[in-house]
């Protein structure tokens, strides 16, 4: 693959990141002065980046496929001895689709936030953080080396932390932000170790150098690299066993959940593995571990999503599950990379639409998130209802909505690999049908179960227009990318693509999957659409109870990590108090005691002073004379 220098419009590549970064800086540093116009500036910078991204896409499509990797060096960033890292960007087909996803969905969510956050006194700060997030996320996908990617990786982590705990006066929000940050640190350790291992093995952390010489490294090294990168990906993308933070992250404002915790940041793990495809292609074990982790997460997320009454947490469970699908696809290797990214794009659009729809519902319901107090909203929130339905049909995978095309391809790829993986993927799709149907049944159908002082209403245009745009995307994006955009051959130069024959014709798998999904949806409808939904949740069976507690994710974390850490901390505190402080305080006491003793020589009498001088004189002269003798 040849790397082309940035010319023409591509020489503005740095501007993609610089625009939102400047926006963040202006909004955060000018303070209250920008309260009035700040939010609009925030929208403007991201929109400008989006326009720039679209122009670059148009230009890139004119280039021959082998000239679509474009690199721009801003300046030499780190140079220690022979080791140097440039602050350099690389735009290729893979980064291009991410740039578009981040900037376009980002711009829509910025616009939506104008309405959603209109009454918040800290609106300016919110837009500042959102801009910071967009800049960091663009840096993550545009970096041409792992070290710069790591900067973006940490940047989105920071923005995520700031935005989850945006309403930090709520203790739950503050705690959720901390939880997300700390669990992400675990994953970040994996990434930093992977970068160090790369440097030791390849002497460079540039994508082109690492991938170029990957086959020279031993399989053990590549497996270690793959597992370390998987650890990083699991942290950022809320995959088992680092999944616990995502549900709590719903404490943040809903646009944040839509942008960061559904559409973009949580998919960074998928990007990382797809980007490092060369490593996984040569490390069988690591790829298998990716598949196992992905399957566990697919089911965990789906089961949690089926039991939650909080609309945002149900959607968060669904996000976990859908990202599990993407991870499954990347774990499958060259037969899956393309479809992982395909599903990532469609999911980014329809899940953002679903979250913003949920936000619109909450906006009308006095910020209540409990679906048991919703019901029959389809009449009062027509636009929200219709757009939500587009997202619903997309996520459960009904043709021709966009989720159908992408999820179907992943399931098909799973069958290509292994019958059991395929069956598991289909079963999870059935559960998806169940929990999504449950969600719309409880929210938009059935009887009114509203609180007395709640008067649902449709949201303002500034919120519904982004909903409509995203609903159009949920409907048509799949077809557009597959038939018009030819996503397979577009991404193939970067991530590779091959396909294996399956024992049965693909139409059989499509029909089979659809039947399972529809069965799931019908069970959901019978349980929640036809039957009365009780306002207090029934006790439920053991699985429901476990799912309500996030399948004991917190309990496991507590037993395995938090409690041992606390004990270790207590042990260290004890050691610090007894041994270290004992030593320090002891020496301080010795010094203080000495000081007190010596102070007594200062008697205030001239005779004592003079005597001490005589003593000193004897000392000086004795030392001089004695040394000579």
């Amino acid at each position: 693959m040849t790397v082309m220098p940035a010319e023409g419009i591509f020489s503005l590549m740095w501007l993609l990141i610089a625009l939102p970064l400047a926006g963040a800086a202006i909004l955060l540093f000018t303070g209250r002065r920008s309260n009035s116009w700040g939010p609009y500036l925030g929208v403007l910078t991201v929109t400008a980046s989006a326009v720039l991204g679209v122009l670059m896409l148009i230009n890139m499509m004119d280039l021959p496929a082998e000239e679509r990797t474009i690199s721009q060096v801003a300046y030499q960033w780190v140079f220690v001895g022979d080791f140097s890292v440039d602050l350099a960007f690389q735009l290729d087909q893979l980064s291009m689709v991410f740039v578009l996803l981040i900037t376009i969905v980002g711009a829509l969510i910025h616009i939506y936030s104008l309405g959603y956050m209109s009454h918040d006194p800290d609106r300016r700060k919110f837009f500042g953080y959102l801009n910071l997030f967009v800049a960091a996320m663009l840096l993550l996908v545009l970096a041409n080396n792992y070290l710069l990617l790591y900067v973006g990786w940490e940047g989105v982590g920071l923005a995520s932390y700031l935005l989850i705990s945006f309403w930090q006066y709520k203790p739950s929000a503050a705690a959720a932000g901390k939880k997300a940050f700390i669990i992400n640190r675990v994953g970040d350790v994996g990434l930093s170790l992977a970068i160090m291992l790369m440097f030791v093995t390849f002497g460079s952390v540039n994508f082109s150098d690492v991938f170029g010489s990957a086959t020279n490294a031993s399989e053990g090294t590549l497996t270690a690299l793959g597992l370390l990168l998987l650890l990083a990906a699991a942290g950022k993308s809320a995959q088992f066993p680092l999944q616990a933070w995502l549900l709590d992250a719903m404490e943040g404002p809903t646009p944040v959940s839509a942008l960061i915790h559904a559409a973009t940041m949580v998919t960074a793990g998928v990007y990382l593995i797809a980007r490092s495809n060369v490593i996984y292609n040569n490390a069988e074990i690591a790829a298998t571990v990716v598949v196992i982790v992905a399957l566990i997460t697919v089911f965990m997320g789906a089961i949690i999503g089926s039991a939650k009454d909080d609309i945002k947490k149900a959607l968060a469970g669904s996000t976990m599950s859908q990202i599990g699908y993407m991870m499954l696809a990347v774990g499958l290797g060259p037969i899956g990379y393309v479809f992982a990214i395909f599903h990532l794009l469609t999911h980014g659009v329809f899940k953002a639409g679903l979250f913003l729809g949920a936000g619109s519902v909450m906006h009308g319901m006095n910020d209540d998130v409990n679906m048991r107090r919703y019901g029959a909203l389809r009449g009062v929130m027509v636009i929200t209802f219709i757009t939500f339905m587009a997202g619903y049909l997309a996520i459960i995978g009904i043709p021709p909505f966009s989720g159908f095309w992408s999820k179907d391809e992943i399931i098909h790829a799973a069958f290509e690999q292994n019958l059991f993986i395929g069956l598991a993927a289909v079963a999870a799709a059935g559960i998806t049908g169940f929990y999504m149907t449950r969600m719309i049944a409880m929210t938009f159908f059935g009887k009114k179960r509203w609180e007395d002082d709640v008067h649902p209403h449709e949201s303002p245009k500034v919120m519904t227009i982004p909903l409509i745009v995203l609903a159009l995307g949920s409907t048509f994006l799949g077809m557009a990318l597959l038939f018009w955009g030819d996503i397979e051959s577009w991404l193939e130069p970067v991530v590779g693509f091959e396909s294996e024959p399956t024992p049965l014709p693909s139409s059989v798998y499509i029909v089979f999957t659809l039947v399972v999904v529809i069965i799931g949806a019908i069970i959901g409808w019978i349980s929640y659409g036809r039957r009365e939904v009780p306002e207090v949740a029934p006790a439920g069976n053991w699985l429901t109870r476990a799912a309500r507690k996030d399948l004991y994710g917190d309990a496991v974390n507590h037993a395995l990590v938090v409690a041992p850490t606390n004990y270790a901390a207590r042990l260290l505190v004890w050691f610090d108090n007894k041994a270290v402080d004992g030593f320090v305080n002891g020496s301080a006491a010795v010094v203080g005691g000495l000081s007190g003793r010596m102070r007594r020589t200062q008697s205030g009498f001239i005779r004592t002073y003079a005597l001490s001088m005589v003593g000193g004189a004897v000392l000086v002269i004795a030392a001089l004379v004695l040394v000579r003798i």
Partner: protein
Amino acid sequence: MNTFSAPEIDYSAIAPILIIFVAALVSVMVEAFIPRASRRFIQMLITYGAIISAGFWLFTIRDTRVITAGGSLAIDGPAIMMQGTILVLALLGAMLISERSLDSLGDSFAPRASALPGSVDEREFTSRGFTQTEIWTLFLFAVTGMLSFVAANDLLFMFIALEIMSLPLYLMVGMARRRRLLSQEAALKYFVLGAFASAFFIFGAALVYGYAGTISLPGISDALSVKTGEGALVLIGLGMLLIGLFFKIGAVPFHQWTPDVYQGAPTPITGFMGAAVKVAAFGALMRLLYVGFSGLRWDWEIIVWIVAILSMLVGSLIAITQSDIKRMLAYSAVAQSGFILVGVATATAAGIAAVLFYLIAYGFVTIGAFAVVSMVRDASGEATHLSKWAGLGKKSPMVATVFSIFLLSLAGIPLTSGFVIKFSVFAAAITAGQTWLVIVAVAASVVAAFFYVRVIVVMFFSAPTENTASVAIPSAFTTIALAASATITVVLGVIPQPVIEMVANAGIFIR
């Protein structure tokens, strides 16, 4: 028969000394003939005019390297460097002495030093608003002595310069307006012990003359290189000379006057003396050791090491348990003398440069710190007890911050001049192969950091009580002196390069 011939004198080279000296003589005349009402103004005019013109003259002759006045005075790079430092410190010291706004009764000095403390006379002089102006005369004589001390190239002139510097200081120490008994006690102790030390010095000079047959430092050096035998005579003589100088720099075990004198003296005098005497005495000490006794380097080196270690350790240790700011700063001065002696012991060009730099930076910190001390007051005058500084950071954040800068510099924290000077002295000592001495010095600075930082903790992390002192609003004099000291302290910490080059260019002591 030998005929007496007048020595050649390079008047231009010694003009700075002469300017200050003549100004001091004129100042005596002013006291005698000018009416009381206009004396203060005229005295200040003479003092500031003399210091500034001497400074300018010194700047124009900055490249002079000459031995003049019959070999008595050596005007070389280090001498000019230190004379310049002394003049700048004298200018700042004069500003502190000029201050009259802090105390409701007037300046810091007793209206009539002759009146008995607590007597009817004293009350009358105070109520009539007398101001005494002799302080300016004494100040000018002290500066004359200091300027001569750093240039003195023979033992006799060195002794005379020592006395010209010291005698006015003894008097000035006893002139505090408030707490006069403490002040007079301090003056008497300083005088008696100072006379004792001077006796050692002059007796040592006699012994060395007996050995070398000359009092000129280069002459002694020549004698050491040709003569053998009679070693005890010159060694005892050198020991006694050193005792006289160690007393002046306040090195252990000749330091015990410092806490009493620092505490008792009027604070502007403490600041000036703490800064400028140290420069002058270290200048004389280095010239004595490097020019006169470089042949005995292996003998005096041990003495300097021992005294340096004792000063660093004893000064730092005793300072920990001090509860009075001025006494604490006095012990800190003792410890700082130890740090400077580490540089003196190297006897290398880098060591000389480091010591010069140390003296410059330390001088400004000292003047600035005592300027702050003079501003923190309660009803009875200066509030020097540490408990009265509790919570000062909340009551007067600006002043507390500035004082913290000085304390951090004394503790040797980076971004202040204190770090750079400690670093350059220690680096010079390591290059000279005295790593073990540096280890002791670093250990001592760890102990020292404790009591400097403790004051910052008291100021910023304790709540103000009803005993907490308040900061009096100073006039432009103290404000300018304080601002200049603080600025120089920070600038030398951030961009020390120009001054490092300046002291490196000063070169070595000529002979």
